């Protein structure tokens, strides 16, 4: 099995090609296995100690990783130590079908980062926005926070009105 892996933490991103042996029945839950990362061979002794928590021992070093699936397919949030990594995983088959810059195509839905109330909508539909420009202000726990455009684009649709309450993840705005 060959994976193309992209990890991102803070402002850093890394890409790797990771080769793992095929899954055998006996070793699916815990085992020592050999891998190649970016052509360099390695050996990992790994096991899932609790649901979603993995213990990995590599060259004697002991690591703990908390792995949670995020919304999209092949997308994970992984905590190692005090650092959180966003990991995108594609095996060689799906890689070409999806393309590398899928995130740029089609409108992007901006969701509510937390439950709260819409205090202000700062843009109108069809308006062109710059990356980092404020789109809406949401209030929760008596604090106001501005939701900014993750990239430049055009506001295709605003899904909420001022004063409206929203749940976490609720669509706020589509960015074309």
């Amino acid at each position: 099995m060959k994976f193309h892996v992209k990890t991102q933490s803070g402002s850093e991103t890394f890409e790797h090609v990771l080769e793992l042996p095929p899954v055998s029945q006996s070793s699916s839950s815990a085992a020592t296995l050999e891998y190649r990362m970016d052509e360099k061979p390695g050996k990992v002794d790994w096991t899932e100690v609790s649901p979603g928590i993995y213990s990995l021992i590599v060259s004697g070093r002991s690591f703990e990783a908390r792995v949670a699936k995020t919304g999209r397919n092949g997308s994970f949030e992984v905590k190692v130590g005090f650092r959180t990594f966003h990991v995108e995983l594609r095996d060689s088959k799906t890689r070409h079908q999806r393309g590398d810059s899928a995130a740029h195509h089609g409108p992007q839905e901006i969701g509510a980062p937390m439950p709260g109330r819409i205090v202000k909508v700062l843009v109108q539909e069809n308006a062109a926005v710059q990356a980092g420009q404020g789109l809406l202000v949401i209030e929760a726990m008596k604090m106001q926070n501005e939701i900014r455009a993750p990239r430049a684009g055009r506001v295709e649709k605003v899904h909420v009105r001022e004063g409206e309450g929203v749940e976490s993840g609720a669509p706020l705005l589509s960015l074309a």
Partner: protein
Amino acid sequence: MTAFKKLLVANRGEIAVRVMRACRELGISTVAVYSDADRKALHVRYADEAFHIGPAPAVESYLRIDRVLDAAKRSGAEAVHPGYGFLSENAEFARACAAEGLTFIGPPVPAMELMGSKTAARRALIDAGLPVVPGTGRNLESLEEVKRIAAQFGYPVMLKAASGGGGKGLRLVRDETEMESAFRTARSEAQNAFNDSSVYIEKYIERPRHIEFQIFGDHHGNLIHLCERECSLQRRHQKVLEESPSPAIDDSLRERMGKVAVEIGRLAGYTNAGTVEFLVDTERNFYFLEMNTRLQVEHPVTEEVLGIDLVKEQIRIAAGEPLGYGQNEIRQRGHAIECRVYAEDPENNFFPSPGLLCGLRVPAGPGVRDDSGVFEGWTVPLEYDPLLSKLVVWDRNRQAALARMRRALQEYLVAGIKTNITFFLRVLEHPDFAAGNFDTGFLDRMLADKIPEAEKPDQDQEQERIAALAAALASRQGPMESASNVPAPAKSAWKSAGLQSLLNQRP
């Protein structure tokens, strides 16, 4: 053991659990009150009895004196502990308790009222010759008068709205040339915000430390202080980390400040637990700031250093027992630090991060105390202060306590919501903080500097590869049933997508 058989805790979250623990140890039955948002909360589960008092918003539940008192009556409680926040400094509530024959665990109503008014407290202290920040405390109408008084105090000075609060109508004036425009804008801002353009002058204390003294009085005329807490580590005037002793206070200053704190308590006719807050300037002059007539959030650092349970002491004293300690028995041992663990996102302007706490591992072992109000599976509600827990460590000296706090923070794991745990690790690594050189502006300056995270290149690169490996192993296990009970927070996905796109756009 004490006179009370049953006590109602008029609060929620960690402090409600803290008070109930004290009650259990004293053999007192506990009564919880709760809003719609808190049916599953830890304090409701911990209590012997629990009464519903209304919808989620505090004004319709935890701030409703009538409903809290109704729960007290229905349960047959004999005393009420208000915790901090909510009704804890509400003199009307204390009076209403008394009217119902309930013991309010706190100071007498007149002491609450005196200290509840900043100006009245300030005047009383001035009259008694006790140190307050130099200022006029009264409305100044003309620019000339303002300039004259400012020259008298010496620049810099603060202009403050008489009806002020929340930073509105507040101006720092560094020299006389700035005064005219500052005076004008402060007045107009005050007019807009409070419909009252009155402003007054206070000397601006530069780089002050915020040091507070715990005091304790009983109903037998005993009143002592329990030494200081260092509370200068604040983000936007909110304390986030407290410690005791203060690295800035030596024995002689402690004695002087403690004496003044006790005098202030006497002046107010104080009983039970209270806290006198001071500003200390760089020349070690200290000025009364305000007095909090209740238990403080950060009371555990005092408990750890002195070996005194402040909540049990509060209850005993309210029941009429004498203070369990004389001033000469108060001895500090070692050093304690508290970190307030909040559900907030340090990478996103400390925005609150309520939601499902789907994973929790709490630090433990020697010298570590976690006063928590949450549990794995709890949904942190939107409506209240997002304090999850207070992590407190003790060790023989400050250096050891800092190392222990670092160890404890490293053990802490909260999944599903964001917390400020990693932020504390950054603070602990700051050389000025480690050296004890900081003031109330330190944290805001540190955050404004956007000090880059300390580079730990070797380990971090290894961690990055481990993250890649772990994700691949997890996905290889099949459709990841195993991790499916760790719901991915919608927020992370959103944030991740957003950041990713931003990154992709950079040159």
